[in-house]
């Protein structure tokens, strides 16, 4: 392959071979670049992506989730209503009147706005799905882009645990239909570790520091912070072992005290899951909120053929309230391009 024929970033290497465009030849006479982290999709890839999204859309529709589309541009104020930690709008522009517009960083907040304004009095629950692009400022890298296609659902007005179980069922059905074999779903609770820290009496400022280390994946930092608290040995051990606890339903058993109560929600949810969903679940007590508006159950989709999660979701029981319609809600979004990479990886027998 010549240097020129290889796109500067993204997953061009694999795709180029698939579509036969990686052959060395006469270079084009002019090369107009596109922004890093964006890309052109050519027919071979588009056909494969479309096949995946068609199957996912059919699953969503069959489960009663009506497809919606919202504008890619929204007023900045819409996103200012919510805690957008982890999903801050990266691109801003002015309209003709000087209002600030943003490119949507996810679909959940636009749909929360849509529910509050278009469905103020409708019977519940509401079920919506989407296949739409979202925009984030990220490092261009394999499977990570500024503009990315999300396939997801939002279930509004259905509380835990039944609503969460329904969303997990739809998620597994969509992945099965897409043809992904070896996936697992990590399931945790965004409120579990914060409430555990509170229960053992860690002051608020210290809690924040420990949670920051945990969100960064720095277990050495968590250990340092916890040791500095000077807690009794058993409490200290508990705070260090919980974030590392992950596995089958057995990790929910044999717990005592505050932790026993904290995982009761996860046990109730587990009892509601269909067997084909339950077998995919990895209970993960260390899973913390990836997005600021998550309140309860949070989950991530893993596959051995992908080094990064290919989708995520969770409960956001307080988000709709900030749009004037307090309703419990849950949803998830799959990153279609990452899912496609995982599918091609599984095809080639990639296990890591």
């Amino acid at each position, binding site marked *: 392959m010549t240097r020129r024929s290889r796109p500067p970033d993204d997953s061009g290497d694999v795709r180029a071979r698939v579509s036969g465009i990686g052959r060395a030849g006469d270079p084009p006479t002019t090369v107009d670049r596109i922004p890093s982290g964006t890309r052109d999709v050519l027919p071979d890839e588009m056909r494969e992506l479309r096949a995946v999204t068609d199957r996912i859309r059919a699953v969503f529709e069959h489960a009663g989730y009506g497809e919606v589309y919202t504008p890619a541009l929204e007023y900045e104020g819409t996103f200012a209503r919510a805690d957008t930690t982890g999903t801050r709008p990266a691109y801003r522009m002015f309209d003709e009147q000087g209002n600030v517009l943003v490119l949507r960083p996810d679909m959940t907040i636009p749909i929360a706005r849509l529910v509050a304004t278009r469905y103020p009095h409708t019977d519940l629950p509401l079920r919506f799905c989407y296949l739409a692009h979202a925009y984030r400022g990220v490092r261009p890298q394999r499977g990570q882009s500024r503009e990315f296609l999300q396939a997801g659902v939002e279930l509004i007005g259905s509380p835990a645990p039944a609503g969460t179980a329904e969303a997990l069922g739809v998620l597994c059905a969509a992945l099965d239909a897409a043809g992904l074999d070896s996936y697992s779903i990590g399931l945790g609770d965004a409120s579990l570790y914060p409430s555990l820290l509170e229960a053992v009496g860690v002051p608020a400022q210290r809690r924040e520091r420990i949670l920051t280390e945990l969100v960064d994946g720095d277990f050495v930092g968590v250990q340092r912070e916890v040791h500095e608290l000077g807690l009794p040995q058993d409490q200290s051990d508990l705070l260090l072992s919980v974030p590392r606890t992950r*596995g089958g339903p057995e990790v929910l058993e044999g717990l005592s005290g505050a932790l026993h109560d904290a995982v009761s929600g996860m046990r109730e949810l587990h009892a509601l899951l269909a067997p084909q969903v339950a077998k995919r679940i990895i209970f993960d007590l260390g899973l913390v909120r990836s997005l600021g508006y998550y309140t309860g159950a949070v989950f991530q989709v893993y596959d051995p053929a992908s080094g*990064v*999660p290919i989708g995520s979701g969770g409960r956001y029981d307080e988000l709709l309230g900030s749009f004037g319609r307090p309703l419990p809600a849950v949803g998830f979004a799959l990153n279609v391009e990452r899912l496609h990479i995982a599918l091609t990886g599984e095809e080639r027998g990639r296990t*890591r």
Partner: protein
Amino acid sequence: MSELRIAVPRGALFTDTLDLLDRLGIDTREVRENDRKLLFEQSGIVTMRPSDVPTYVEAGAADLGVTGKDVLMEQSEREVYELVDLGYGYCRMVLASVAGEDRTAEALRRLGVVRIATKYPRIASRHFLQTGRQAEIVEVKGSVELAPLTGLVEGIVDLTATGTTLRENGLVVREEIAVCTARLIANPVAHKLRARTIDRLLERLSGV
């Protein structure tokens, strides 16, 4: 074949890391006997520069890796789990300048900005930002000690183990920025999907 793929850094941490893997029951003889080969299927070891370890682990091309805290600090945006402080490879990240009157202090007082040469531009920028001082960071690839001796900069930010190289070049440590040791890191997805294998390894690690 090994269940886990482990990224092992060549260089200063190489021997200590292989010794540790030996104690964990991973056969490293082939790696020790062969300094050209990079991928060892039998033991699951891949060898690379320390600064490449987070790249491979983040992408999932390796499940686990060993690298210095200095590398992790410099590449702080990498999405990897930092599991264990392995304790060896002790170094300090320091600000140093030519012995005698501190030229970095003089530059800050009289010029308002200090020029700093380093291989760690982000650690250096962060340190001066956090201490409320203005610095112009000059990134160099080779021997950083040369930069203040030739007048390119007033000070350097660099990693030092014993301080010998600094001393031999007439430099003295002015500030300590961080203490760095070897860390065991993991790919977040592998940490979930290969939980049992990784936890067994960690248990053996805390036992040795």
